[in-house]
């Protein structure tokens, strides 16, 4: 079998990827030098210095930690609820017909409306912030899980029933492995969407976190500070993606490859 190509792909992708980042930094530097307005277009090294200062003062870790906590809490809630709803709707046509209109409406409600209403109805607190973010993400996870559930293999379902496998064993060994690619895609798409919404939530109603800091820096038109916080957190999220989500996805897909 000719399955050598996928294994070598990540390596050949490194070089152009790295070069494109270098190119973007160069372009940014040129623009910063030409415009020569450090107040609105700070140079990359100015932003890098700010990130360094934030990291050494410890401020970065506290606020990034608060934001990360909100991201992970709402991510966990959204994945759990979305997975359960998607499985339920994918398995039962009746449930799907009843819940689908609500799902379509939920998918189209602007994130900002959910956030504002959560703060008004629940209060300006942590629970409201996390609920608002989770509510924004649940419909997307539900839709992706539902599509995966509809594509479940009926022959394996028959096998599981013929051998009287328990509900839990069926979910764990028959259903979830088939849903894994959909769940992984929902998780990857979800975590990047969620951290952007978390920032809005913090901007509007929290007194710590990256979004709160950006709020303060916005009032003083400190562009270098805004960029420093944004890039610092992008690095945190990329580390999670590369260090946690991707290895997990690779592990879950091990059975597809021929390594003996």
């Amino acid at each position, binding site marked *: 079998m000719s399955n050598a190509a996928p294994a070598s792909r990540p390596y050949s992708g490194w070089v152009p990827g790295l070069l494109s980042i270098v190119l973007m930094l160069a372009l940014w530097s040129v623009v910063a030098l030409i415009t020569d307005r450090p107040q609105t277009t700070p140079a990359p090294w100015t932003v890098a210095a700010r990130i360094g200062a934030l990291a050494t003062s410890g401020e970065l870790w506290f606020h990034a930690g608060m934001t990360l906590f909100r991201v992970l809490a709402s991510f966990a809630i959204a994945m759990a609820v979305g997975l359960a709803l998607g499985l339920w709707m994918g398995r039962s046509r009746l449930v799907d017909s009843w819940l689908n209109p609500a799902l379509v409406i939920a998918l189209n409600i602007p994130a900002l409306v959910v956030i504002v209403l959560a703060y008004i109805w629940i209060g300006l607190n942590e629970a409201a912030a996390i609920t608002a973010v989770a509510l924004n993400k649940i419909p997307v996870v539900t839709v992706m899980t539902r599509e995966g559930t509809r594509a479940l293999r009926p*022959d*394996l379902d*028959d*096998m*599981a*029933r*013929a*051998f009287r*496998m328990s509900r839990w*064993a069926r979910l764990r*060994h*028959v259903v979830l*492995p088939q849903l*894994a690619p959909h769940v992984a895609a929902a998780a990857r798409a979800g975590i990047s969407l969620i951290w952007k919404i978390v920032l809005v939530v913090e901007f509007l109603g929290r007194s710590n976190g990256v979004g709160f800091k950006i709020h303060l820096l916005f009032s003083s038109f400190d562009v270098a500070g805004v960029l420093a916080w944004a890039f610092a957190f992008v690095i945190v999220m990329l580390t999670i993606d590369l260090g946690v989500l991707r290895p997990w996805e690779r592990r879950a897909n091990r*059975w*597809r490859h*021929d390594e*003996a």
Partner: protein
Amino acid sequence: MRLKLRGKSFGGRAVLGPLSLEVERGDRVAILGPSGIGKSTLLRIVAGLDPAFDGRLTGADRLATVFQEPTLLPWRSARDNIMIPTGCDGPTASALMDRVGLPGREAQYPRQLSLGQQRRLSLARAFAARPDVLLMDEPFASLDAETATRMIDLTRDLLDDSGAGLLLVTHDPQEPARLGARALRLSGTPAILG
């Protein structure tokens, strides 16, 4: 295992007519008939996969099914494919894999096995469930003659050793003879046993 069927229809179209079928431990029964006659439908009813029929299915026997295709879990190792659905322990699974000619393949995934090996694994899985009656749905169709012969011999030996009964569905009139099974013919519309 005892089935008293009054009828089975799909969307108003009667597929199976009134028939009764009884298979016990040690019995070997083959149901013959052309494709599309309702053989697989009958087997699905017996296996408990299709509860929407008019009639009664009784008996507390343990059943295990060998499907037309291997129907293995691609994301679990060969040994887990035996242990997870049947709940048997590791040594039993390994012993059965030796028995069907797959020694040392425990850690491999199904796609690393040939189709013939996958079918033998599926046979091992069915026997791991320690069935009183083994249900088989055209398990030797789409195999080349030599592989089919080996599979049939293996199935017969395993049935001899375990004492399990057999309910086989096939279109090939030679298979029942080679397995020592009593042949029943399914024919007519709606189909009945003759």
